[in-house]
């Protein structure tokens, strides 16, 4: 939890002092479909299901928390 608090604090502090360093017009590459963290949600959801059924680990899987903020 200490690590999570540190990340949140870092994000909040960043907002106070730093201008966006990648401007919207510089995000063409990030908006390319090949840069989508989870381009095939049905497929990645299925593969996560395959792993969850055969591994003890669970949570924080691929495709979670994605999004490029390119809107």
């Amino acid at each position, binding site marked *: 939890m200490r690590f*999570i608090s540190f990340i949140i604090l870092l994000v909040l502090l960043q907002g106070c002092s730093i201008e966006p360093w990648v401007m919207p017009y510089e995000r063409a590459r990030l908006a390319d*479909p090949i*840069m989508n963290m989870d381009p095939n949600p049905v497929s990645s959801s299925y*593969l996560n299901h395959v792993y969850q059924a*055969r*591994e*003890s680990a669970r949570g924080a899987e691929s495709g979670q928390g994605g*999004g490029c903020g390119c809107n």
Partner: protein
Amino acid sequence: MAAILPEDRFDALYHYYGGGGVDISGPSLLFRKQVAAPLSMSAHYYVDTISSASIDVVTQASPYNEERTEYGLNVDYLNGKNLLSMGYTTSSENDYVANTVSVGISQDFFGDLTNVSLGFARGSDTVSRSTDNVFERAVERRNYRFGLSQILTKNMTVTFAFDLTSDEGFLNNPYRSYRYSTVAGDGSVSESWSPEVYPGTRTSNALGLRGLYYLPYRAAIGAEVRQFSDTWGIKAQNWQVFYRHPTDNGWLFEVRYRQYSQNRADFYSDLFDVQNAQNYMARDKELSTYESQTFGVTASYGFNFSGIQWIDRGSINLSWDHLRFDYADFRNADVSSDVGNEPLYGFSANVIQVYISVWY
């Protein structure tokens, strides 16, 4: 999850898993549509048709067939830079029913370079036993998740995810037994079996970090690491790398490699010394010490629907993953040998997915 409504799309997938004496196949459908300016809804349907003669089944029971069906509904509401989500999923098979409700919120910050998401899910499951009409147990699940997506440069983005999950109730498989040794009067050792006993609670946390980088030519390379630990003493790690390469004539190829390893749960043993050796006893290979590797490829062909006005584009996809599992302290009890000296177990599996996606 960025603070934009997801795209309207339809996906129809057929999946097949074969390996370790188990065959699982079935369809998966997802339908998503924006129903008002700030509101998007989705529904999914998923089926596993299972034919199992796994190592657990052949050593302790008889091969069986069963079917698991899952339905889900999800609503996303966009309010400025806030995206609110609610979902409900239900699944059932002949001896297990699971219901899950989830809520989530995500928000863009700092010129939309950062997206933070929070989520909570609560599940209520009912475990029964096909051989016993009276047996019925409950499981309550809670999941808390935190996600952060960050644009680092105009070529690179990373995501961080943290999950805390707690389960309470009947957490073991109602059919599985643990193995213990029995010494006869003449000193010969044989094996006996007794129903597993698990703790009634389990809490786990997982940390995942994923990065994606746009190469100097039009291609992307990505990597992922994840750390997991739980109150049963299991620690697990996995990492994955992947490469995506589009071509000028509409094809997109992805190759990936994943490695996973974990150590055993505190109460796992392949062979206990005596019956009721301790409070909790398990012989589930998923709770043992093992490693697995996956190599996978996906080929996708994208196309435009110039003839149909309400469809933007689509893709046809074929995906194959080859998995290999090698267990370090789970032995193949189906092989005739001295008890406790059987060869270590391992198996390979293939996963095939064929699916079509349509955006409209």
